[in-house]
């Protein structure tokens, strides 16, 4: 039926797209989303492996990843709100006080 490598390649592509978004989007929130996208790609690989190896650890890891993603989103969006509040902009390139 479906070889594991298909899933892996798909996850690789998704991850790459996540990277692209990570680099090219200017909006903080979108950048967050791209991170979520990469996490999802990894999850896919996890599940595929756990399936192929016939052991459930991978899926457990996926659950953990999801939890961590949730925590990260909560805190991250809090930070985003702060940024928007203080700099009146969500553009990461406008948040560049850390300069020489």
């Amino acid at each position, binding site marked *: 039926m479906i070889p594991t490598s298909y899933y*892996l390649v798909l996850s690789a592509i998704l991850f790459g797209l996540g990277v692209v978004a*990570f680099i*090219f989007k200017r909006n903080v929130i979108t*950048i967050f989303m791209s991170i979520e996208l990469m996490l999802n790609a990894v999850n896919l690989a996890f599940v595929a492996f756990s399936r192929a190896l016939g052991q459930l650890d991978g899926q457990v890891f996926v659950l953990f990843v999801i939890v961590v993603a949730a925590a990260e989103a909560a805190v991250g969006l809090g930070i985003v709100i702060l940024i928007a509040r203080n700099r009146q902009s969500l553009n*990461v390139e406008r948040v560049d*006080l850390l*300069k*020489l």
Partner: protein
Amino acid sequence: MPTPMLDYLWIIPLLPLLGSATNGLLGGKWPKNIVNLVAVGSTGLSFACALEAVREFFGKGQGLVHKEFFDWIVAGNFRAGFDLQMDQLTVVMLLVVTGVGWLIHIYSMGYMAHEGGYYRFFSYLNLFMFFMLILILGANYVLLFVGWEGVGLCSYLLIGFYFLRKSAADAGKKAFIVNRIGDFGFMLGMFLLFRAFHTLDFQAIFTSPTLQGWPVELSGHLGTLTFACLLLFMGACGKSAQLPLYVWLPDAMEGPTPVSALIHAATMVTAGVYVVARSHILFTHAPTAMLVVAIVGCATAFFAATIGLVQTDIKKVLAYSTVSQLGYMFLACGVGAFSAGIFHLMTHAFFKALLFLAAGSVIHAMGGEQDMRHMGGLSKRIKWTYRTMLTATLAIAGIPPLAGFFSKDSILLSAFQSENGGANVGRVLYGFGLLTALLTAFYMFRLIFLTFFGEQRYDEHHVHVHESPWTMLGPLVILAVLSVIGGWLAAPSFFGGSDLFANFLAPVFGGAESAGTEAAARALEIPMAVVAVVTALIGIFVAFWLYLRQPGKPEALAKSMHGVYTTLLNKYYVDELYAAVVVQPLVWLSTNVLWKVADVGAIDGAVNGIASGATAIGDASRHTQSGNTRSYAVWVVVGAIVVIAVIFFWPTTTAKPVIGMVR
């Protein structure tokens, strides 16, 4: 029979440590009475525990109690565990240390009441108790050495207690450094012993077949044991202020008087004696070393006594008397009368602590005045101090039936009988010992007369003399009682009985005692005693005649024998000698080579070089910090790629399985 205290022997040293930690860390905020409670409470408890332990020890019957609590150092076949042991010798030391220590704690509450750094003082004092207990309870040389160094540290801290006073700080340093010299020898001795016996555990060494089969290294023949013993004795010299390393002790009087009493009279300085007695088996195998010990001890005793004749600082006098008494103890050990040495150690702990505390009380009364020339006629004003101090003086002078008499007498007796290195050596030692006894009696009573009799030589208006509080007098009285009755253990030997103390210690020293043949001892006992007492009386009388009958005389004498007098006054110029021979070259070396070249050139250069290099690199690389998040993102990705590349594409023969990487 259950022996809880023996099973948990470590509690005895632990209590003072806890007290020290508590006071040192928190005491700064606390009122004095709480600090007192902690300090005195902890030491008192540990004294109680010690008593209980001793009771159980006797209940358990004679013999050695040896407990291994945990491994401390384990390297190859070498093991230095936190092992505590207890035998008769330990019992004596334990009771002396905890008991006297406790009394001195109580005394200090009164004495230090008006001093700054109250909690600091008690924290140090407790810490000292802890290390001292480790020293005497330790079951191997390594643990003993821990205590050894620890007490050294505490004595340093306490001598320099008034660290704002330069003299105090210097005295502290001096004590520390001089001790290091001795400790160096001690360490070498340990190494030598380890090389010889492959262990540093007391029992292991003393009962090892190696030692049993060891040929006694006859006089003049220098073997391993002789060297080891001499090195150990070197350490003992440092700690117990023997020639040539005694110089630190007189200066140590800069510390508070209770410290002088506890550390520099009663307990720490006797550590050397303890070590020699503890390793008596080794020493008995090395007669040469014993001879050296005896000679050094005797010389120190006499030498220090002579210096003591002319000192005017009340504590200095006591300091030199301490040195000379320690000399006595070593003399005893040297002639193989270890029990006598320990006996004298104990009695000396009583009356010398008493002397110091009384002197402290006098100083207290005089409002800090230490020079005897500005005292006098105090006997009416501070009765209790006077009485107790007189008792102690009689004791140290060797007047029967006080403690000092018995101990000193037994020492002299054994010295007289020792055949080690030829009979004459023993005779000579005895002669000097007797002479020292005379001098001792003299300078001690000189002290008494100058302090308590004659017309007052101080100004009523400046110093208003007052008796000390009972927290101070209580210990004085107790110690006085002890220094009266402390010697009676040995009394029966005069009335045909046997020396109880010696018997008590017999299990430890056993055959090591070379106290002549019983018959000869019997025959000599009484005459010797008579001679000694007469000598002492002569000394006392001379002092009386010089300082009370004709107060002008001493100056005249000093004039007539000017050279001798100044020499003695300047302590034979030993300090100056050391300064010229040792200190100056060292200072020069450290200034010109170590400081100017090594430190400034090499070390600082390296450090500064590294720092400036870091600065340069940082300056170069800080331009990557564009502050633009997206650029950072790019860098992150680059890093990720590098990682992936390394993981998957590191050149190997076979392609790696993905799972292998993932797992």
